């Protein structure tokens, strides 16, 4: 049985956890002092040795990313933190920043030192007013305390409602003052990122994991997790469970174990399908309860660890309705730059609507898969790829349910039964 291991979340239960006083009380800003006294390359090596991998979805080794920044090039370098948390189901960075914004700021100081950057930008989504307040205040307090402003500056940049800006190159365009649209790579941000300068873009949770690694050492971090997925991470459990919430555990824990902590699927119901890491990761079913939730384990089972957003749906949920809604989201959020994604997501919605309403035909399923095939891998960024995940995986596991919509002449489910306040829970 895997045990929970709160590191990032260790002090969230203290009422003033978001203040600089509380953060300092628990040793805050000691790790950045330690790192600033180290050679920058040694800091990069330490993060490499820890095995920390990107927590924003892709799982790229953080230390290696830092190591890609050219040194001695006499150019400005930038650190950009991706706090644009918008992937459906994903809800880890927002509570982290509300409860402890200083850990991110300290992580920024360490990362800036390592990559020889003087400027860090935190790009936060605009739909979280109170988190913006907390982070802004924390930055102000870090300046007053002298942690910032002595060679390292942190600027908070607030987005304005565009999922695509969570994609790192769209984020950079947005931060430069343009519409948020992805760039063609190469060049990668490490060579030509913000203002065409070498730039590291990391997720909030990745950067926030760094202070504890510097404070406790790479071996301490290495000791947690699995062979290739080291450390602890935030698993966000939501949906049809008795007790949803954040569970910080070593990588490799299983959904069965987390559901056990959460009091199981809502009483009287059973697990039907779930996402391991947000809506862009192919769906899992009750066959996947024992898949180790680390980068390799989830991938071997045909999905992706993504953001560890575990959205749980029970047997009252119509999978076609769920997939249609996600697809409408991707269609709405497609930035329109690449034709396969812009046009493809539009057609996916039309076909799925027909299927949900029972007016499609079985040939539409083949057409959906064909469309997905023509979207996958054919655009600048992965938004379109993500849009195909729920469709292809739901047809793989629930083809009969799509067919049932056709034979039934419409959706066979009662949407009231899947709501929390229907009495269906009684």
């Amino acid at each position, binding site marked *: 049985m895997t*045990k*929970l*291991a*709160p590191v990032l*979340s*260790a002090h*969230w*239960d203290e009422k*003033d956890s*978001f203040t600089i006083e509380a953060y300092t009380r628990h040793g805050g800003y000691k790790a950045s002092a330690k790192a600033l006294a180290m050679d920058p390359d040694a800091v990069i090596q330490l993060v490499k040795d820890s095995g920390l991998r990107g927590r924003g979805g892709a799982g790229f080794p953080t230390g290696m990313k830092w190591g890609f920044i050219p040194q001695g090039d006499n150019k400005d370098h930038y650190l950009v933190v991706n706090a644009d948390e*918008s992937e*459906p*189901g*994903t*809800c880890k*960075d*927002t*509570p982290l920043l*509300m409860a402890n914004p200083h850990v991110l700021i300290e992580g920024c100081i360490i990362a800036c030192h390592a990559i020889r950057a003087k*400027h860090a930008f935190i790009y936060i*989504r*605009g*739909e*979280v*007013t*109170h988190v*913006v*307040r907390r982070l*802004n*205040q924390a930055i102000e307090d870090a300046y007053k305390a002298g942690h910032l402003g002595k060679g390292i500056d942190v600027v*908070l*940049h*607030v987005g*304005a*409602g*565009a999922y695509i800006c969570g994609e790192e190159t769209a984020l950079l365009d947005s931060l*430069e*003052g*343009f519409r*948020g649209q992805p760039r063609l790579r190469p060049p990668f941000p490490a060579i030509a990122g913000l*203002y065409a300068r070498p730039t590291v873009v990391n997720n909030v949770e990745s950067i926030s994991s760094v202070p504890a690694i510097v404070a406790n050492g790479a071996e301490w971090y290495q000791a947690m997790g699995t062979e290739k997925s080291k450390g602890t991470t935030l698993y*966000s459990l*939501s*949906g049809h469970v008795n*007790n949803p*919430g*954040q*569970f*910080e555990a070593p990588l490799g824990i299983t959904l069965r174990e987390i559901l056990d*902590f959460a009091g199981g699927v809502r009483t009287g119901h059973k697990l039907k399908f779930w996402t391991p890491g947000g*809506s862009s990761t192919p769906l899992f079913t009750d066959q996947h309860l024992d898949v180790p939730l680390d980068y390799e384990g989830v991938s071997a089972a045909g999905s992706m660890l993504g953001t560890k957003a575990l*959205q749980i*749906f029970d047997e009252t949920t119509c999978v076609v309705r769920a997939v249609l*809604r996600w697809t409408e*989201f991707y269609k709405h*959020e497609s930035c329109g730059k690449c034709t396969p994604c812009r046009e493809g997501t539009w057609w996916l919605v039309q076909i799925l609507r027909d299927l949900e309403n029972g007016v499609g035909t079985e040939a539409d399923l083949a057409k959906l898969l064909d469309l997905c095939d023509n979207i996958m891998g054919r655009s600048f960024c992965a938004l379109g790829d993500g849009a195909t995940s729920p469709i292809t995986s739901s047809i793989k596991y629930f083809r009969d349910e799509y067919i049932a919509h056709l034979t039934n002449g419409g959706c066979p489910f009662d949407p009231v039964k*899947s*709501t*929390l*306040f229907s009495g269906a829970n009684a």
Partner: protein
Amino acid sequence: MAYSSDQIEVMNSIIKRYPRSRSAIMPLLHYVQSLAGFVTNEGIEEIAMLLELETAEVTAVATFYTQYKRRPVGEYHVGVCTNTLCAVMGGDAIFAALKDHLGVENDGVTADGKVSLEHIECNAACDYAPVVMANWEFYDNQNVESAKDLVDSMRKGTPKPPTRGPNSLVTWKEASAVLAGLNDGKANEGLQAGEPTLLGLKLSKEGK
């Protein structure tokens, strides 16, 4: 409306945050929205002038991002999450009930100008579903009745406080100023975390 010298000073201070001025376009749009309640043509012209851009370049940005409004919204702008998880758990029912209760469609504003309604995408609070936002503050774990009570309280001018946010709900304009990066002194108000956020930590302390 012409901007006052104080307002221009705020705008210049926003521009100074960045190594290159064009990066200030988004916070400046939030700021002009905080003054008029939406992004006006005057606001776009002012930003274009300050950043030495064409108004078309500023308009292109303003119309790309859904949080910038090109016409007035309510003093309290209510967003109901209808992305899959919230929708399934009750968001669809809440949104339908609020449209009916307020007598407005998606993107509509009540005649008294107090409340506007919009269906929104995932707002990163899925462990608190179904989620309703007002002026982008969290109202967690909503149902049809609680959501109706919430908008009724807004129409009476005494909005219920957010579940995770400041002690009282600020107006749309005031919230827009926060998003422009201005400090309203309320960062220390409210909870540090709600129960779901703390669940794993609590269980760990119980030896799990």
